[in-house]
């Protein structure tokens, strides 16, 4: 039987042939199917970019919003209906560049949502400009003298903000990525997974082969609950560690902190307004 999160008919997918996004899509579809998530309760949220198009290619509800702005609606959707499973997607430009401020502050709320960042170290949709994670020295049509800015380290940033689940995956490794995705979605709290992904059209440096050669998996006995060690680990480059680098199960989620659910767990849309109470409130102004 076909995966219920895939479409019955063939759809037109607008990524370049060979794009790492195809693997991520496949990994996601299998993950969702294997987790047996109820389809009507799944919402995929994204900003703009090649990665952010992913929800369009999954048979599920989606909110495909503005560039950099995936996380605010994702947070609000989960807050208004905690029964939903909310997964956000974006690229390195979308989430770490344009949406940087939202990422910083949403980590403070710790909503129970998952964020997959397809990190190909380049801007794809706008055709090959440097992204916040592009390596120093790379020449692009726009950075004609080569990139001089230090690349952003999303994992170190996330751990410094005590993001409750921080992982890195490589799109080329189907089984391992699926496992990380499953754990990220199952995790209660904000989960950030930075997924290395080759851009076959615009990044000729960080290729499939490059990622394969410059990454390694964390040892079986690695303890993700040690924040300081996790931070050290997140600073490692070439080879970059893959796997769940940091976890914290001790933070309350945003939804758990919302007063509105203290006595009544119903999603907001199910609440009836108590008109007499409203009338009394108005009358109290006399």
């Amino acid at each position, binding site marked *: 039987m076909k995966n219920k999160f895939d479409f019955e008919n063939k759809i037109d997918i607008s990524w370049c042939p060979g794009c790492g996004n195809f693997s991520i899509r496949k990994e996601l579809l299998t993950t969702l199917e294997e987790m047996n998530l109820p389809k*009507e*309760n799944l919402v995929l949220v994204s900003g703009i970019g090649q990665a952010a*198009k992913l929800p369009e290619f999954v048979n599920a509800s989606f909110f495909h919003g*503005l560039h950099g*702005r995936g996380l605010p609606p994702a947070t*609000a959707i989960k807050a208004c209906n905690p029964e939903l499973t909310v997964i956000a997607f974006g690229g390195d430009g979308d989430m770490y560049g344009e949406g940087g401020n939202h990422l910083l*502050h949403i980590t403070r709320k710790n909503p129970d949502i998952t964020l997959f960042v397809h990190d190909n170290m380049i801007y794809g949709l706008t055709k090959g400009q440097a992204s916040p994670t592009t390596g120093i020295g790379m020449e692009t049509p726009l950075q004609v003298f080569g990139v001089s800015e230090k690349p952003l380290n999303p994992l170190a940033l996330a751990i410094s903000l005590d993001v409750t689940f921080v992982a890195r995956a490589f799109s080329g490794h189907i089984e391992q990525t699926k496992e990380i995705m499953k754990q990220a979605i199952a995790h209660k709290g904000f989960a950030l997974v930075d997924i290395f992904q080759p851009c076959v059209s615009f990044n000729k440096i960080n290729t499939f082969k490059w990622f394969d050669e410059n990454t390694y998996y964390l040892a079986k006995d690695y303890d993700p609950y040690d924040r300081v060690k996790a931070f050290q680990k997140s600073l490692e480059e070439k080879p970059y560690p893959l796997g769940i680098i940091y976890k914290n199960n001790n933070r309350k989620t945003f939804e758990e902190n919302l007063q*509105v659910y203290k006595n009544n767990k119903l999603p907001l849309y199910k609440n009836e307004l108590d008109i007499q109470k409203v009338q009394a409130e108005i*009358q109290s102004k006399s």
Partner: protein
Amino acid sequence: MIRKIEDSLVIVLAGQAGQGIQSIENILSTLLKRSGYNYFSTSELMSRVRGGINSTEIRISSKPIAGFLDRIDLLIPLHNDGIEHLKKRTSPNTIVIGEKDKIDYEKIIDVQFTQIAKEIGNAIYSNTVAAGYICGLLKVNLKLCQEFIVDYFADKDEAIQNKNREAITKGHELGKHLSELDINIEKSHTVKDQLIMDGAEAVSLGALASGCNYVCGYPMSPSTSVLQNMSVYSKKFDIIVEQVEDEVGVINMALGAWYAGARAMTTTSGGGLALMSEGISLCGMMESPMVLHLAQRPGPATGLATRTEQGDLNLALYSGHGDFPRIILSPGTLEAGFTLTKDAFNLAEKYQVPVFILTDQYYVNSRYNTPAFDTSDLKIDNRIIKTSPDYKRYAFTENGISPRGIPGYGSGTICAGSNEHDESGHITEDPVLRTKMVDKRLNKLQLIKADIIPPKLIGNNDYKTLVVSWGSTFNIVNEAVEMLGRNDLALLHFSWLFPLAENTLEYFQQADKVIIVENNATAQFAQLIKLETGYDIKDKILKYNGRPFSVEEVTHEINKLIGTGGNSEKQI
């Protein structure tokens, strides 16, 4: 000399931020209203937490009138700079009361508020002494004052309640004996039971009554009080109130909230709305309902952060790239603030469009008594449908409005995107579909016209001169027109600004002369009227120094324009 006051008494309190003007006003508003006086107050503040000079006007009237007057009958400066600050508004008729040793004013009537408070036990009680003084002056029943003040400090311990009781009593005693003013303002039984609140509360209660259950914002004067009010309501009602990292996050969160089935509102001022602009455009593309409270203040940029202007009509009208429909409302009274905000949610839900509520600093910070709001027909126009597997979020329907589903309710998928999309919500670049979708969205502008609240005509139907106003200036302009007392003069007030009422032109064609009053520099509403009707309003009374119009200056300017006959643009 004894001054007789019979219709309206204007008291102005002036002092530095932090000196307690607000505390005095808080005590007086409800107390004077409960004693049967029509009450109006408005504040002008400097953008600073301490120091500077702020003032609050309190107007007590025999009739329910709630407009700002320039005239000051009684000035109570709590700081010496208050005299200079208000020099232009005072006249030889103004009576000044204060502490002689602190205020340099020759004819001051010495009342030692602080000294009396210290004798009671602490200078902190001086505000209550001052409030008591004004109550004494207005012959408010002492027992009512005493009971009120104890209740006012109900959350403080008994000793503090008693000290305040003593303070209000002492103040009352002194005020009663001021012989320079002979006040005979009629009280009214109906006023006693009326509501009293400021504009921010009217808007907030409207939201509450419409089932608003998600409010987000970023603090920005003068819109923050709505955010705070909603936060207080969230202690009793099922409302999520969130302070967000920036206004870009605010609008995108609010969109997520509507998508998930909440009834969301944002509250901000011009700068914040400018940041929301792209999200407002997304609202247009997603056909999401949205309610945006925009409390205007003078721009551009930071402008005058704590002052007033009607300068953001064009911002509301044009914010967001691309073509999409919207509704813009702007209340002129508290009652309208309540009703229009309540209606805004239902309109947003019905037409799946953004609805703007334009207020301003003057509106949100003005407080007065108002008859009870009509809550007999409170209903939540909830149009969310339960979806089936073949659900299409943007299904073409006869009138262009697609039934709105939400995730988790039914078995359909809810696909909403910022790209042009097909009926199912998925990206398309098909030129035929694109045109159809644009037409579908814009057609709603035609549908909305059925719900437009027409402008309100006040005065003789056979007018020769028509004065036009919109939003917060209503009470001021209305009183000015009334004061002129001419039966060839009428007022046309708009609280529904866009889409413009279809019969607007007819009102103008009947008049020999049309005068527009706007608290901005470029007559933005007159521009809209010209764009929509072709009618060019040539006589304009414009004010953009950051202050509200006063009844006197509007009266004066209208008079001048009627007198001269020629067209003119008067800037105050």
